[in-house]
């Protein structure tokens, strides 16, 4: 399929690539951070080895200095101890630096790759997940995959410490060393075995906690509704139930965890007791020295640490895997449309032809819009309007027929060119946290002309919005235009569409949140602004429809009548019902 070929071709822009698997994502991340990861492994191994050497060194100080040595011995051994600490600290800092970069740089690159996919002009063929899910993949999952890079260093450090400890023990006493090493195996096996049900418990507990938190957030988000009804008591009672079952679940989980903690302590204790017992017997019969005994006991305690760190590294990897799977799924989401090769230059006239167009509930639409005219499209079924807009906005491909712009099929144009010529302004238009002017001006690389912006603002009746802002034109309008009212947002969004001044503009219900008098003003402004341009108005507003040169009425997904608004109102009873209240 040609669409797939194009998808493959643009893989490099997407980091791990289109159609990446979970493994590809992790391999990409590893490859990009190879040098940092290698550095982190080396320095962590050094650090852990030095940590392991501390009890050995303390044992040596006891042996060679405290137990019968002179001041010179003490100084020499303390100097060695200081050197060891210097090495330990330096290796730790270098390892930290490598680890930081290995994880944070990777997380950043993944965030950018995820957002690049989300904003890709080709869109998504199907709803790729709620905005919360997408956000969490682009941030939390990206970070978790990045942190997964640390598993290498942790594993390397644990292996080095184990190797060092085991060697030191075996050099001290083969017998004691074997006791310790053989004892470690069942200890770790038992610890991991016990931890398995705990993980399941804790995820069940987390689900309960999240549910209670979600209930609280949901009730507060709907607080105006709760208060409008006086339902505070009922809402609080509902939260208490959720909070109570969250409490019960966490207490249950905590009991398990405490039991696990106790058992781990007990197992470690048994291990230590056995090591102390065999070590002391060896020391009493003179096979090992006092210092070696002290060092062995210290090493036995120390070795439990690196062994459990293996488990930690595996946990990080497992988390990174799950996140990488979600990231790969996002990157591999199929595109909605492919876009064509033609980047038609020159100034198009804006002749729009819909030839036998069909997509979902939109069954069959033939429509020719002559350059410079305004045509209204009325349909009582919102799904038909949505299908038409999706096809025109290149959010879904046409199933039958095609759209032609100045004689060129829309599908043959590149996406950027198609959208430059034919702009669809949705009913639910999103504003950004910028000033009103910056919102209206559009893209940074091709901002609308200031004079055009001013005309568009006044045509959409949006200049009045500035007067209500605390700093007028210099105020940012908050996320999604939070500080504006619904009607104000709608007018700013309309001004943005008009300022873009495309050859063909498709507007969907642009005036639902303004009053009738303002709507009439806007209809006049629209007419003046689009006088020599092609405009398609998908609306049921009679005020807007009466300004159209021609109106097409779609019933059940096919056009059933065409004429001026006045003609259709008189001749077509079903049109009359759809438009008139």
């Amino acid at each position, binding site marked *: 399929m040609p669409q797939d070929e194009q998808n493959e071709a643009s893989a490099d822009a997407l980091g791990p690539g289109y159609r990446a698997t979970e493994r590809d994502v992790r391999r990409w991340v590893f490859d990009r951070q190879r040098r940092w990861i290698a550095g982190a492994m080396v320095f962590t191994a050094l650090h852990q080895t030095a940590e392991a050497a501390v009890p050995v060194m303390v044992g040596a100080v006891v042996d060679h200095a405290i*137990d019968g*040595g002179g*001041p010179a011995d*003490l100084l020499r051994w303390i100097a060695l*101890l200081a050197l060891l600490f210097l090495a330990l600290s330096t290796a*730790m800092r270098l390892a*930290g*630096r490598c680890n930081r970069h290995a994880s*944070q740089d990777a*997380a*950043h690159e993944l*965030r*950018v790759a995820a957002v690049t996919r*989300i*904003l890709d002009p080709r869109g998504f063929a199907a709803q790729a997940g709620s905005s919360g899910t997408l*956000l969490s993949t*682009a*941030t939390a999952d990206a970070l978790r995959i990045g942190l997964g890079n640390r598993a290498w260093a942790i594993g390397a450090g644990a292996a080095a410490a184990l190797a060092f400890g085991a060697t030191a023990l075996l050099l001290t006493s083969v017998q004691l060393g074997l006791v310790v090493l053989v004892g470690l195996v069942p200890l770790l096996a038992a610890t991991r075995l016990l931890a398995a049900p705990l993980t399941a418990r804790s995820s069940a507990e987390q689900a309960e906690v999240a549910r209670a938190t*979600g209930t609280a957030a949901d009730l*507060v988000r709907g*607080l*105006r509704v709760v208060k*409008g*009804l*006086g339902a*505070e008591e*009922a809402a609080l*009672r*509902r939260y208490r139930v959720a*909070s109570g079952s969250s409490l019960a679940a*966490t*207490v249950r989980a*905590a009991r398990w965890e*405490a039991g696990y903690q106790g058992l781990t*302590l*007990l197992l470690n204790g048994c291990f230590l007791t056995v090591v*102390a*017992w065999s070590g002391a017997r060896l020391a009493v019969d003179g096979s090992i020295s*006092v210092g070696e005994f002290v060092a062995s006991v210290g090493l036995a305690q120390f070795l439990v640490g690196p062994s459990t760190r293996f488990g930690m590294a595996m946990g990080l990897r497992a988390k990174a895997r799950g996140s990488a799977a979600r990231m790969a799924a996002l990157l591999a989401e199929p595109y909605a449309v492919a876009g064509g090769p033609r980047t038609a230059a020159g100034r198009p006239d804006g002749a729009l032809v819909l030839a036998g167009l069909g997509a979902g509930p939109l069954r069959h639409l033939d429509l020719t819009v002559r350059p410079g005219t305004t045509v209204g499209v009325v349909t009582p079924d*919102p799904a038909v309007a949505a299908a038409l807009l999706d096809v025109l906005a*290149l959010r879904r491909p046409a199933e039958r027929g095609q759209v032609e712009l100045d004689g060129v099929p829309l599908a043959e144009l590149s996406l950027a060119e198609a*959208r430059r010529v034919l702009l669809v302004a*949705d*009913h639910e238009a999103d504003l*950004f946290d910028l*000033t009103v002017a910056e919102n209206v001006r*559009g*893209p940074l690389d*091709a901002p609308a002309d200031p004079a055009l912006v001013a005309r568009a603002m006044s045509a959409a009746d949006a200049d009045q919005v500035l007067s209500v802002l605390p700093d007028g034109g210099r105020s*940012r309008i908050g996320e999604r235009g*939070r500080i504006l009212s*619904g009607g104000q947002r709608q007018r700013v969004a309309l001004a943005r569409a008009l300022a873009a001044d495309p050859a063909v503009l498709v507007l969907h219900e642009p005036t*639902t949140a*303004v009053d*009738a*008098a303002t*709507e009439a003003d806007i209809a006049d402004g629209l007419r003046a602004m689009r006088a020599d341009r092609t405009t398609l108005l998908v609306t049921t507003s*009679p005020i807007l429809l*009466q300004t159209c040169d021609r109106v097409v009425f779609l019933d059940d997904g096919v056009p059933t009548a065409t004429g001026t*608004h006045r003609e259709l109102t008189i001749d077509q009873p079903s049109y009359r019902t759809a438009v008139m209240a």
Partner: protein
Amino acid sequence: MTQVSDERLERTAPAPPPELLPTATAAQTRAEVLARVLRRPWQSAAALLLVVAGVLAGLVVPRALGHLVDVVVAGGHQTSAVTGPVVLIGAACLAQALFAGWGAALVARRGEEVLAGLRESALGSALNTGLARLERSGSGDLVARVSGDVTVLGEAVRTLVPQLIGALLEIGLTLVALLLLDWRLALAALTAVPLQVYAVRWLRRRSGPVRRQERIAQGEQAQQILESVNGAHTVRAFGLGPRQLAEVERRSAAARDLALRSTHIGTRFFGKLNGAELTGLTGLLAVGFVLVRADAIAVGTASAAALYFLRLFDPINGLLSTVDEVQSASAAADRVVGLALLPRSGAPEPTAPRRPGSAAGPRKAAAVELHGVGHAYLPGHRVLHGVDLSLAPGERVAVVGTTGAGKSTLARLVAGVHPPSAGRILIDGRPVEELTDGRIRRMVALVNQETHVFAGTLAEDLRLARPEADDEELRAALGTVDAWDWAAALPQGLATEVGQGGTRLTPIQAQQLALARLVLADPPVAVLDEATAEAGSAGSRALEAAAERALAGRTSLVVAHRLTQAVRADRILVLEDGRLVEQGDHEQLVAAGGRYARLWAAWSGARD
């Protein structure tokens, strides 16, 4: 790119921050938490005692190991001489495991109970926030406190508190043990303390600001990504992709750089702690050397002391590195406890059973009177002037006017959201300000543009309005607003999960649900503000019909955008610049040829 954004920072002012909710002082938070901990003194004491016992048992181990060393050094023993100390080690480990495990379970339980109490009272306070306050502050901060801050606090209770208690006791008791072993050795070990104090001070100075910046940067990054996600259609249509992506990249890089800085500070901090460890260890070994040479202590004592000291590394480093988390957890606690400081808009009243048999029909409609009512949100900025008005019981009144004419303000005043700046509002002859918030709400229900669908089943959503309603009543209410057909067609009918995470309802269905709640709440007076405006023409008509039935028998005030709502009202009020300029029914006002007639002409111009 950077240049462009710097330029923008200069030119633009941020959106006005919403008014912040109160935050408790550290002392208030401490008092509140302590009071809750002491609510069950015996359980709390038992938890603490068990943890102490566990740590004490653990401390026996190095002591017994030191004893073993002495046995070895003394020489000439049979190998059986080691049995006694070894058995002691085993017993101590057993006791430690038992006490520590049990103690941890009790600490967790008390902690969780205290946490549950805190979060429930926080939500109670949030729910009782006055509507006027809510309008000023927005719900963002409230949501953040009952979810984000409560989560941070929960994490702290689950991990930080046990860790802190464990580490503090371990350190304290190990020092005591060291002291009992030999005070001179203990003193030598304490040379590490000044360095540790310095390291912590250094960390707090460096890390606090960076951590704060990091959190802000992460928030900005998340917001930027969310904006891109939510506005993806618009971004694609207008070719804003490069701009959005550059902005995301910039903020993501900023978050990364701050994360790098803050972890860098972390490793430098641990480097300083290494220095402290070396100092203490050196001091201890040197003093041990001197004391052993002077025959003041045995080699075993010095060994035991060194082992004690090595044991301290982990708890001390663990404790010191949680400084940041402790700070952010206590800040979260201040915000959660702070909610209780909100002035209550009216005590939640005892859940008096609602009137019986209300399914049969609404309670007797009430009369509403306004005498010279005016309002100003900001001093000197009057948005409503001298409105005199009287609504007869059961009368349906529509309010029309251009944007900014004061329609919504009038609706809010009648609904009791704000007390009027001037004049009086009487409901059934009683001044609004004499009614507590809860009582106003039971008299007057307000349905506005907000169409929140609560997460949970459809039945649960509806029962918020009347908890005791049975399924039959829910069905009837949905039927009244024409919603039963689609509700019955849902996968599990009334038991279908809706709202966030459930089946998505269309905006029209969500509005019908709001009207069904109104039917169930069954107030004598209802205020509808733009409840049908956003649905588009076809949907609006259906909703208007539903609203009409939901309002039947109630005194109602309806803010109308679509004049069709006005046509069928008993009376129409026309507001302009905050003044009541015309009133009468549709025919009268059209005949009068005033402002309403002009609005009607604009609206219906194409309609005949």
